[in-house]
C-alpha cells in the first residue's frame, strides 16, 4: 500500500507510516471500565492477541463476557457493531449472567444517548438483550483436541461470518494442564495455536482475547504467582493484562504491550458487568 504510487520495495511489506494511519483509525473494544480502557490505549485492540490472567474469582470470565457484549455496541453509539465468538473450555459461561450484562450495557447506552428514539426505529430494535445474545457464537470445548479443532475450524467459520470482531477463549489453559504427558509437545502445539490465532486476528481484523489461569513459580527465593502455560507461551501474546486484588479492590495491570507503558487501574464487577470502581459497589442478582 505505497502511498505515493511507487512500486513496493518488498512484496508483502507495509511501511510504518501506513501502519500508523491504519492503527489510528482502528476502533477499540471498550472493557466497560474507563480506567482499564485508558491503560489499554482506548480498549482491546483489533488485529492483536491479548492475554488476560488472574486468580480464581477475580473476574476473568466476567470481563470476557463483557467484551463479548461490548463488541456488539452499534456503530452509531460508538462501538464496532460486530459479533463475538466465545470458546468455553471450562463451562463457566452462565447464560443468565450474559443476559444481565447485556441489559446493563443497553441501559448505559440509553443513558448516554437519550435522544436515540429520534434515530431510525431499526436502531432501537437492535437494542434488545436477546439480539445481543443471538450474536454470540458459543463453542463448548471438552478436550485439548477439540480446542485445537475449533481454532483450526475458525478460519472457515470466520470466512462465513465476516462480522465477527472478537474471539474469546475462556480459558486457554484448562485442557492443556490436564493430560499432556509430553511437555515439549505441549509447547510445540501451543506455539502452533498462538501463531494461528495471531494470523486470524490480522487476517480478519478482529481481537483475540485469551483468558489464562495462574500458577505458582519459585523465583528469587520465594513462590510467586505467574500466569500458567510456561515461559514460551508468555511470548505468544501481543498484550498481557493481569487482574489481581490490591487491598479490597480489583485491579488490572498491563504487563506487556508493544506501545504502552506498564500501568495499573482499578475496576469493579457490578450487577451490570465490569465498570469503573466506585466507593460503594454491589452486585445485584436477578432470578430469571
Amino acid at each position, binding site marked *: 500500500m505505497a502511498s505515493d504510487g511507487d512500486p513496493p520495495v518488498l512484496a508483502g511489506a507495509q511501511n510504518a507510516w501506513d501502519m500508523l494511519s491504519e492503527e489510528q483509525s482502528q476502533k477499540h473494544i471498550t472493557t466497560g471500565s474507563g480506567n482499564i480502557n485508558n491503560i489499554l490505549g482506548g480498549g482491546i485492540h483489533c488485529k492483536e492477541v491479548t492475554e488476560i490472567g488472574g*486468580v*480464581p*474469582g477475580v473476574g476473568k470470565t466476567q470481563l470476557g463476557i463483557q467484551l463479548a457484549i461490548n463488541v456488539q455496541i452499534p456503530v452509531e453509539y460508538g462501538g464496532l457493531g460486530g459479533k463475538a465468538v466465545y470458546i468455553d473450555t*471450562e*463451562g*463457566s459461561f*452462565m*447464560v*443468565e449472567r*450474559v*443476559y444481565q450484562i447485556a441489559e446493563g450495557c443497553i441501559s448505559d447506552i440509553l443513558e448516554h444517548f437519550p435522544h436515540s428514539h429520534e434515530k431510525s426505529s431499526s436502531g432501537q430494535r437492535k437494542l434488545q438483550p*436477546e439480539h*445481543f*445474545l*443471538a*450474536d*454470540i*457464537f*458459543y*463453542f*463448548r470445548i*471438552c*478436550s*485439548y*483436541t*477439540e480446542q*485445537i*479443532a*475449533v481454532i*483450526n*475450524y475458525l*478460519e472457515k467459520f470466520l470466512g462465513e461470518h465476516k462480522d465477527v470482531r472478537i474471539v474469546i477463549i475462556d480459558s486457554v489453559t*484448562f485442557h492443556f*494442564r*490436564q*493430560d499432556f*504427558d509430553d*511437555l515439549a*509437545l505441549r509447547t510445540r*502445539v501451543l506455539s502452533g495455536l498462538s501463531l494461528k490465532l495471531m494470523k486470524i486476528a490480522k487476517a480478519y481484523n478482529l481481537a483475540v482475547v485469551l483468558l489464562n*489461569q*495462574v500458577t*505458582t513459580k519459585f*523465583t528469587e527465593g*520465594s*513462590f*510467586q*504467582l505467574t500466569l500458567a502455560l510456561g515461559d514460551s507461551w508468555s511470548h505468544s501474546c501481543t498484550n498481557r493484562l*493481569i487482574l*489481581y*486484588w490490591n*487491598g*479490597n*479492590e480489583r485491579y488490572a495491570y498491563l*504487563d506487556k504491550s508493544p506501545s504502552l507503558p506498564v500501568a495499573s487501574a482499578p475496576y469493579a464487577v457490578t450487577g451490570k458487568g465490569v465498570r469503573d470502581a466506585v466507593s460503594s459497589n454491589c*452486585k445485584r*442478582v*436477578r*432470578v*430469571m
Partner: protein
Amino acid sequence: MANMPVSEMQLPPHLAHLLAARRLTTAKDVLSLPEVELMAVLDAGLPTARAAVAHVSEAACPPCQTALELLEERVRLGGGGRLATTLCGLDEALGGGIPVGKLTEVVGPSGIGKTQFCLKLATLAALPECYGGLNGRVVYMDTESKFSSRRMIEIGQNSFPQIFRQEALAQKMAGRILVMRPASLADFTKGLEQMKVTLLQHDVKLLIVDSMAALMSLENEKATAGFRHHPLRWALSFLKSIAEFSRIPVVVTNQVRSQSNDDGYHFSFEVDRKDGNNCAERFDSHLVAALGIQWAHAVTVRLVFESHSGHRFIKVAKSPMSPAVAFPFIVESSGIKLLREEGIDVTGPEITSIRCQGQNVLAQ
C-alpha cells in the same frame, strides 16, 4: 469428539486412505501433531497435511450455538437450572440455588457443618417436586465415613414433618440416597466411571462427594512423576463432564490446611507489598483450601464455611452470578439454618479467606 474415529469423518477418499495407512485413527492422533511432524508422518507435502488438518478439525469441532439458543434451551428445560437449598438468603444470592450442570465446592474447617449441608441437599434432592425437590436419586460418595442415615432422617423429619411422618414415604426417600464408600482413589475412580452409565438410567439428580480432599491425601501427589495420570486433574474433568452432560448439580466438599510461607499469593510486580503485609497476616489464623489453585480455578461456585467472632458464616466466595455476601448460620435438628436472610456484604479478597479461630467450633 476427541476420540472420533477418522473413518466416520467423511473425508475425501485419498485423505482417508492416507491417514488410515499411517495409523492415525482418531481426531486426537491427527490434531496432536504440529504441522511439520504431520507432514513427516504422512510423508506428504504441506498442502496435503493442511487439508487433512482442516477436514479433521471441522469434523471434530463441536457444534456452534448462539447464546440465545443456550438461553432458550435453559428455559425449555425448566426448573431454572437450580437446586434450591431452602436457605432463602443463600438461594437468592446464588440465583435460585445450587446450579445444575456445574461444580459447586463447599470448603471449610472440620466440624463446621459441611457434611450437614450435604445431608440437607441430599434430602432435598430426593423429595418430590411439589416440595421443591428434584424427585430423583442421589449418589453420595462418602470418603470419610461421615454419612449418618440417622442424622439424615432426623433432618428430614424436622424439615418436612408432613412427609417423613409417614414411614413408607420416609423409607422411599431414604431409599433414593445411594451411599458409596470408596476406600481409595482407585475405588473412587472406578465408582465414577461406573456412574456415567447408571446416572441416566437410574434418574440420579445429584452427586455429592464428601470429601474430595480426603481422597487426595491418600495418594502422595508429589511422588507421581510428572503429569502422567495425575489423579486430581482426571477427577476434576470427569466430575465437570458428569455435571454438564447429565445436567445435574455436583457438590464437592474440601478441607482446609494452614497457610505456609510457601503459599505464593503475589505476582512479581507486587513485590513491594509482600513484605509489608506478611507480618500482619501471620498472626491471623488464616487457612487455605486444600487441593490447590488449579482446583480453585476449576470449580464454578465456591461456598466457604468459616467461623469467627463466635459465629459461623457461609460465604459465597466464587460465583459468576452473585455478590460477595456472607450469611451467619447455626446447625440445628433440621440441618443448617441461616440467622439472617440478608447477606452481609464482604468487600475485597476477604471473601475468599477462611478463618477458624481457636474456639471449639463443635461446641454449640
